[in-house]
């Protein structure tokens, strides 16, 4: 235990000394009023209502300005506390006297480092009844100083609404200082004024220890603190002339500064825990009970995963069913009137049938337009996920998923980047930096591509709505479940082969209370994600459309029976690669071409389909919905009539192989070129193998 015995300073002495003595650290006391009145400082954590209290006690007699020599804003004013006129200083919010910010540094300097005569005559520590444990820590530190102290407790009404009652008498007895409840907004501060008056009439209390790790003697300039930090177990009070301090009870662990800080903080928390235990009483509120009851199911080891699956199934059902009619209408509008209108305009300027017609109508309108039809779907999906997130449910899903990952031996903390991966794989790869272990990082970077990013969702929805109709939502849901399975399978595969020595790390999640989602925030999040998707995907698609269009205009093939696009450079490349996918039932050049484009970016898969199919049928304005029909024809042909297993195999491969070149670049940056190539290989082999298995087994089903 760290204790300090300091000579009490009487109030008249303190006032006199303040007029003449230099401070320990420069001009830190520059703005303390020096007119002979006692100085009362208000300190407290941010958001405890300290400034409201300051306003309530000072009324109009106050001013705000920077503390001398700093950019920290401090309020000062006058207060008649009982029969005593005092100068009040409203110090900035501070969680602790171990400063992490200039605001906290100022509070520490004034209460701890300033010589006794420079310190306030009385300190009012403002704590919140609604957040007692958090706000009492600063009080515990201030109690270590030889100061006159009064605790003012705010937010009693908020605490009462949460079913928390705080006994101020019991709290005062536990802390050894007077505690009074105040309600600054209603001007109820008379009790505080009386305690301040009484406090100023008496001597400062003896401090109980060294707060902030160092108590400087006058004139040291901070050197003593630096010296004590440099010496293991060093004691700030060892400097000549310093107040005497005894260091005891360090359990033999006070060998370095960190341990000393930890032990000091632990002792303060012991005081906080004891004070909270004896002074607070909780009555279970309906809201708390509701949260707890839901959590008993939502985080249950067995029921939790089932609830998670049910919730995600509902999300995809809602997304696909609600969005489908809007999507159809938009598709009809773009491929019908918009394309027709543009062709009409081009015809007026004599460009009908030219390369401009092909690029604009069959390329840009078909490709970008196809993406636009997904806007309603994405908006609904992002909104629903935002509701789940803001309500607090996704935090419970995180517990469930984390438990599953631990069960199969994957590092718990890998959950963080993998969750990010369901939005986009690129930042997910960067997010692996939170993992401390290099092999865990490597493993997680290799697993991130198996998380199904939102760009793949567009392909799932197009394909599943084309082939599975009313069951499209089930199929999309299944793809996300498969994504989780692939992460687990990939992890187990890598851990049993290339990465055997990966340790596990625990992950602790702080679960918030369930809360009603805020509409403004939901809209903001949805718009942010949607606009980001459109911005990025739009750029990629336009670029890809131009490249695919250019490749499709270069005729390199001479197959007279083939379509013109198939004889182009694009078609010939896709045709050359397509036999690779014949065992999986989609060895067609259209599907293969889309996968080649998807290697660059999955956002461009749908647009490349739209583009190449449209290129085949120029001017066919009477078949606006022909993409789906064309897809069906091609899958029917390539699968030998086993369309369903071929389509499922295609989706499985799309999920499993390389997500995009941007992810590869991020992987190369994090794990190097060799492991990135290994990752490409593992993903391709796993995706191809499962796709072939799906098709070959599926075709056996009658």
């Amino acid at each position: 235990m760290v204790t300090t015995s300091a000579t009490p300073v009487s109030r008249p002495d303190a006032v006199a000394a303040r007029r003449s003595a230099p401070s320990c650290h420069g001009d830190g006391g520059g703005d303390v009023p020096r007119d002979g009145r006692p100085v009362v400082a208000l300190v407290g954590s941010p958001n405890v209502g300290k400034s409201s209290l300051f306003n309530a006690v000072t009324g109009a007699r106050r001013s705000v300005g920077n503390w001398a020599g700093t950019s920290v804003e401090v309020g000062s004013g006058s207060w008649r506390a009982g029969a005593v006129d005092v100068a009040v200083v409203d110090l900035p919010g501070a969680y602790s006297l171990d400063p992490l910010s200039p605001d906290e540094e100022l509070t520490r300097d004034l209460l701890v480092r300033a010589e006794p005569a420079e310190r306030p005559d009385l300190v009012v520590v403002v704590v919140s009844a609604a957040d007692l444990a958090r706000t009492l820590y600063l009080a515990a530190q201030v109690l270590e100083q030889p100061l006159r102290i009064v605790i003012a407790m705010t937010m009693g009404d908020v605490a009462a609404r949460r079913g928390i009652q705080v006994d101020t008498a019991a709290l005062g007895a536990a802390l050894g200082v007077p505690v009074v409840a105040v309600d600054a907004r209603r001007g109820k501060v008379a009790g505080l004024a009386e305690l301040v008056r009484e406090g100023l009439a008496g001597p400062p209390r003896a401090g109980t220890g060294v707060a902030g790790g160092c108590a400087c003697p006058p004139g040291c300039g901070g050197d003593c603190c630096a010296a004590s930090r440099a010496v293991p177990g060093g004691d700030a009070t060892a400097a000549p002339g310093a107040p005497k301090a005894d260091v005891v009870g360090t359990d033999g662990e006070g060998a370095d500064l960190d341990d000393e800080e930890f032990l000091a903080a632990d002792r303060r928390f012991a005081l906080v825990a004891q004070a909270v235990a004896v002074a607070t009483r909780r009555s279970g509120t309906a809201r708390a009970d509701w949260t707890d009851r839901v959590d008993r199911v939502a985080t249950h080891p067995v029921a939790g995963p089932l609830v998670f699956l049910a919730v995600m199934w509902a999300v995809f059902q809602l997304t696909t069913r609600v969005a489908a009619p809007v999507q159809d209408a938009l598709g009809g509008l773009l491929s019908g009137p918009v394309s027709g209108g543009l062709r009409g305009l081009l015809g007026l300027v004599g460009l009908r049938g030219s390369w401009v017609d092909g690029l604009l109508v069959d390329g840009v309108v078909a490709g970008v337009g196809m993406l636009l039809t997904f806007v309603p779907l994405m908006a609904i999906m992002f909104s629903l996920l935002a509701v789940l997130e803001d309500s607090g449910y996704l935090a419970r899903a995180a517990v469930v998923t984390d438990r599953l990952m631990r069960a199969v031996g994957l590092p718990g903390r890998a959950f963080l980047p993998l969750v990010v991966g369901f939005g986009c794989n690129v930042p997910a790869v960067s997010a692996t930096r939170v993992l401390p272990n290099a092999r865990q990082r490597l493993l997680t970077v290799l697993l991130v591509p198996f998380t199904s990013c939102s760009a793949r969702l567009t392909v799932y929805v197009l394909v599943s709505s084309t082939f599975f109709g009313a069951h499209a939502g089930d199929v999309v849901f299944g793809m996300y479940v498969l994504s989780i399975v692939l992460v687990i399978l990939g992890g187990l595969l890598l851990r049993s082969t290339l990465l055997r020595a990966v340790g596990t790390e625990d992950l602790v999640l702080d679960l918030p209370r369930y809360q009603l989602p805020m509409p403004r925030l939901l809209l903001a999040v949805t718009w942010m994600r949607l606009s980001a998707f459109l911005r990025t995907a739009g750029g990629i698609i336009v670029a890809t459309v131009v490249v695919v269009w250019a490749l499709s205009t270069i005729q390199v093939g001479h197959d007279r029976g083939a379509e013109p696009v198939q004889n182009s450079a694009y078609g010939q490349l896709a045709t050359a690669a397509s036999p690779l996918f014949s065992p999986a039932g989609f060895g067609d050049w259209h599907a293969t071409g889309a996968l080649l484009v998807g290697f660059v970016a999955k956002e461009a898969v749908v647009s490349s389909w739209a583009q190449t199919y449209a290129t085949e049928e120029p001017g066919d304005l009477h078949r606006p919905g022909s993409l789906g029909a064309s897809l069906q024809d091609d899958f029917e042909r390539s699968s030998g009539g086993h369309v369903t297993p071929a389509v499922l195999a295609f989706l499985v491969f799309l999920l499993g192989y390389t997500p995009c070149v941007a992810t590869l670049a991020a992987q190369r940056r994090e794990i190097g070129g060799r492991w990135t190539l290994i990752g490409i290989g593992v993903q391709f082999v796993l995706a191809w193998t499962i796709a072939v298995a799906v098709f070959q087994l599926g075709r056996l089903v009658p």
Partner: protein
Amino acid sequence: MTAPSPAAASPLRAVLAELDAGAPTLDEVARRTGLDRDVVAAAVEQLVRLRRVTASALSTSCPDGGCGPCPAGSGCDARGAPAPSGRRPVLVALSVRRPTPHP
């Protein structure tokens, strides 16, 4: 009023031990230690300040820019979590920092 638990004598140490032992949530830490849930939360904040624990606010994903060049720059923090103004954190992941072994 509630009776102080045995862990109340050394709350930070008790909370750190339970985090280290794999307690999945702070509610579970509170249950195991017998400490008030708010004391546990405050203790974790202090452990973060003491750099004994790391805390990462997490969102489900970055702005969904798909697989292309990530548009995260405008709306994400370093971990890819979006942070629109005024948003409340809904999930905080905590990890116990382990000292790097000295040779």
